């Protein structure tokens, strides 16, 4: 520990929000353990921490989305205990939750004003509402038909709509949980403009982000969380990037690139080609995406949210059918009609959305782990319990899955352990190629490193891995090659030393080829 984990120094102004000794546990994991957060009036407060550190939970506890198990919350002088997000909103707290929490089927305008529609004699004033919505969005530099269903717009747009909603509630505190994850740099600038505007009006802002540059750009003070505890709080300028990262990770950074668990091996020069994807087109989401994976290689797939990575993964896995483009696997051209085809051929696919596309919540760890393997685990349609038990035992042991026993319903496990079970589901198949979509999203620090190490080891044993990730460290340290998508199109193929944060960011943002790429405005200091 370089920086002190002591109590925070007195903030500039009087505290608007003061959360102390917050406790929160979910079925499997303790999400918050004696966490604290203090925000002064009119300041922009950074809240950072690795995935799973407890940031979102802290926020949801504050707004009453979760009941806290212990601790006290003081807001604007009074002790508060918001029973629901509605109460918090009435109390003067506007929130943009991390998973864009809007209703896709309703129009943009409705989503901005849901719950506080302008009315006359109890009737909604549509013209006024639409006009106001349009105005709010124009201020954010967005022109669109606010009468369209929100679901028909990109995630980026959706995030801006959420922002518009938050600022239009004139609150004393605006919370933004990772609002920039899917924004390009221009949109980020707009966002900063908004934040400064709020600050000027004396409104406080809590700003959650994984992009350090952004924090230094707008934040006054910062709180760092790790494993559900508050480990640092102080002035933004009072701490260097390096110290910040060390606080987040809870360990000193000896050499560059020790932030992930990857043990990077120089990709065997002439890796036998395993998967070849060329010019895949599907709807408007994929406009000519290509990627190559060789045996024993870890190939990264980078891009902003909505850039088409998952879409591409689904096409490769046969979950979606492409309109055009060719697919080669193990030399032969192939076209998987369904996931089971792909599975038979030796592919595995860990989807990005663990809840919606990965786990079967009601089923036990055992049943989830062997779901794909089942056909091989059975004679005449009857499950072979002995073999099943052995395999489950082996993977629970080798992946260090923390579960009371294999009969425990998977929904009771922590995110990280759920993810491990899903990995095991595919490893048990002994596949040739594994497609991992955001394999470490929402997983706490320890588990994350383990999984990353695991991926490296598997590759060394000859498994081909196609890894979609939004975390640059992961791509930089884990991959021999990185393919960058932009608006469904492959815009860059980086290898070896080309794989740097700067180049990635730019390829992702503008989709420029590495050659004619200008130096980034703020070169990343993390690895100085």
């Amino acid at each position, binding site marked *: 520990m370089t920086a002190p984990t002591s109590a925070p120094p007195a903030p500039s102004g009087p505290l608007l929000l003061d959360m102390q000794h917050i406790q929160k546990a979910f079925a499997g994991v303790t999400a918050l353990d004696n966490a604290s957060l203090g925000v002064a009036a009119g300041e922009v407060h950074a809240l950072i921490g690795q995935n799973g550190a407890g940031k979102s939970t802290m926020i949801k506890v504050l707004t009453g989305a979760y009941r806290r198990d212990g601790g006290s919350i003081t807001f604007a002088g009074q002790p508060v205990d918001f029973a629901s997000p509605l109460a918090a909103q009435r109390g003067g707290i506007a929130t943009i939750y991390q998973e864009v929490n809007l209703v896709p089927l309703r129009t943009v305008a409705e989503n901005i004003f849901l719950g506080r529609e302008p009315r006359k004699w109890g009737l909604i004033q549509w013209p006024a509402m639409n006009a106001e919505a349009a105005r709010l969005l124009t201020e954010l530099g967005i022109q669109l038909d606010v009468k369209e269903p929100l679901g028909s717009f990109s995630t980026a747009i959706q995030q801006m709509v959420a922002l518009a909603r938050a600022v239009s509630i004139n609150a004393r505190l605006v919370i933004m949980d990772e609002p920039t994850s899917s924004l390009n740099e221009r949109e980020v600038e707009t966002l900063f403009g908004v934040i400064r505007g709020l600050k000027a009006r004396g409104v406080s802002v809590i700003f959650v982000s994984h992009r350090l540059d952004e924090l230094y750009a707008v934040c006054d003070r910062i709180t760092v969380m790790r494993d559900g505890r508050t480990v640092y709080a102080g002035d933004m300028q009072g701490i260097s990037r390096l110290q910040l990262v060390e606080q987040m990770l809870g360990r000193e950074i000896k050499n560059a690139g020790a932030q992930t668990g990857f043990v990077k091996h120089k990709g065997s020069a002439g890796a036998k080609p395993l998967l070849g994807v060329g010019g895949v087109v599907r709807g408007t989401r994929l406009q000519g995406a290509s990627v190559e994976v060789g045996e024993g290689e870890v190939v990264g797939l980078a891009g902003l949210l909505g850039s088409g990575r998952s879409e591409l993964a689904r096409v490769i896995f046969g979950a979606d059918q492409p309109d055009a483009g060719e697919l080669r696997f193990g030399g032969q051209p192939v076209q998987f009609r369904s*996931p089971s085809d792909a599975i038979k051929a030796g592919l595995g696919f860990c989807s990005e959305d663990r809840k919606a*596309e990965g786990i079967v919540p009601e089923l036990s760890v055992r049943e989830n782990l062997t779901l794909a393997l089942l056909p091989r685990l059975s004679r005449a349609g009857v499950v072979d319990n002995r*073999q099943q038990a052995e395999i489950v035992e082996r993977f629970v042991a080798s992946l260090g899955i923390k579960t009371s026993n294999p009969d425990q319903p998977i929904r009771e496990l922590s995110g990280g352990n759920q993810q491990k079970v899903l990995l*095991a589901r595919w490893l*048990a198949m002994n596949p040739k190629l594994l497609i991992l979509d955001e394999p470490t999203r929402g997983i706490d620090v320890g588990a994350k490193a383990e999984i990353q190490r695991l991926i490296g080891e598997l590759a060394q044993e000859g*498994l081909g891995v196609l890894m979609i990730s939004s975390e640059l460290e992961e791509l930089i340290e884990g991959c021999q090659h990185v393919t960058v998508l932009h608006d469904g199109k492959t815009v860059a193929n980086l290898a070896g030393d080309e794989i740097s944060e700067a180049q990635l960011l730019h390829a992702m943002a503008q989709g420029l080829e590495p050659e004619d790429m200008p130096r980034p405005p703020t070169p990343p200091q993390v690895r100085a």
Partner: protein
Amino acid sequence: MSGEINTAARPARSGSGGQGLLADLKQVLPSILILLALLIFNAFFTPYFLSVQTLNVNLTQVATIIIVAMGMTLVIATGGVDLSVGSLMAISGVLAPLIFLNPAFASLQGLGIALAFVVPVLVAGAFGVLNGLFVTRLKLQPIVATLVLYIAGRGIAQVITNGQLQSFTTPAFTYIGLGRPFGVPFQVILMLIIVALTYWVVKRTVFGRYVLAVGGNETAAGLSGVPVSRVKLAVYAISGLLAGIAGLIVIAINSSSDANQVGQGMELDAIAAVAVGGTLLSGGRAQVLGTLFGALIIQLIRFTLLAKGVPDAAALVVKAAIIVIAVALQQRRRRE
């Protein structure tokens, strides 16, 4: 390490084929307790309750509900529901007599009887497949998809006989309704076998696992190579087959087949049994034993109210209350 299946690991823990029978019983504890409560109440307050005859009466009456409810449990486990079971019972019920009373088989009775057992059940099963196709191919929501045959199915049965009631006395056939091997009513034995089979399928077979996976998270199941459509098709088919069997039993007990009456309101009884048994209609779980107890509870309530001479109107209200209470208890327990 990679996941080739070498069985070098430590010896498997004994009987780790999912929870054992006891664990499953614990899962549906509330319904068991309610059942016990009813039994005790009757034992004290209903004269002549404690007798083999009472047992026979109740089991024979509930047998068909349980048989149908087994299929319903599977359908609901996939997140669907089957409103057409009553109508399918009627269809199979009217077909059987048409077959074994058919002069064509006058000479070879045996064949006629045999076909009368097989064909109607298969036809009902085929209609079940039709339901499945509505759901998987036409992408209709289960309630609507099965509503179609709920309406049309009974109509078909009535059209076949033009609504006429068919009476018969064919011991070889009525055996499934009236036979008593070792003094136990045949349909009760059949019912127990079907329950055991369903339980086994859910616990031990790949298909059973697939049913739960599809109901628990269809997308995830599909991405793990589960043949989602075929699984759905299968459960509706099974539901149809079981309804067919139940239909035969009903007409056998009455030695007559009445397209207008066979299976009336069966869908509600079956669904209620499943719900009271602790299976959520949202799918992903299948409390086979719970359904068994659920049906017994509903039957015992009916028996008690009749025996105590409670007017039918009041009986309905009581039944409603108990369903809500039972389900509420089940869910409270589940939340903990």
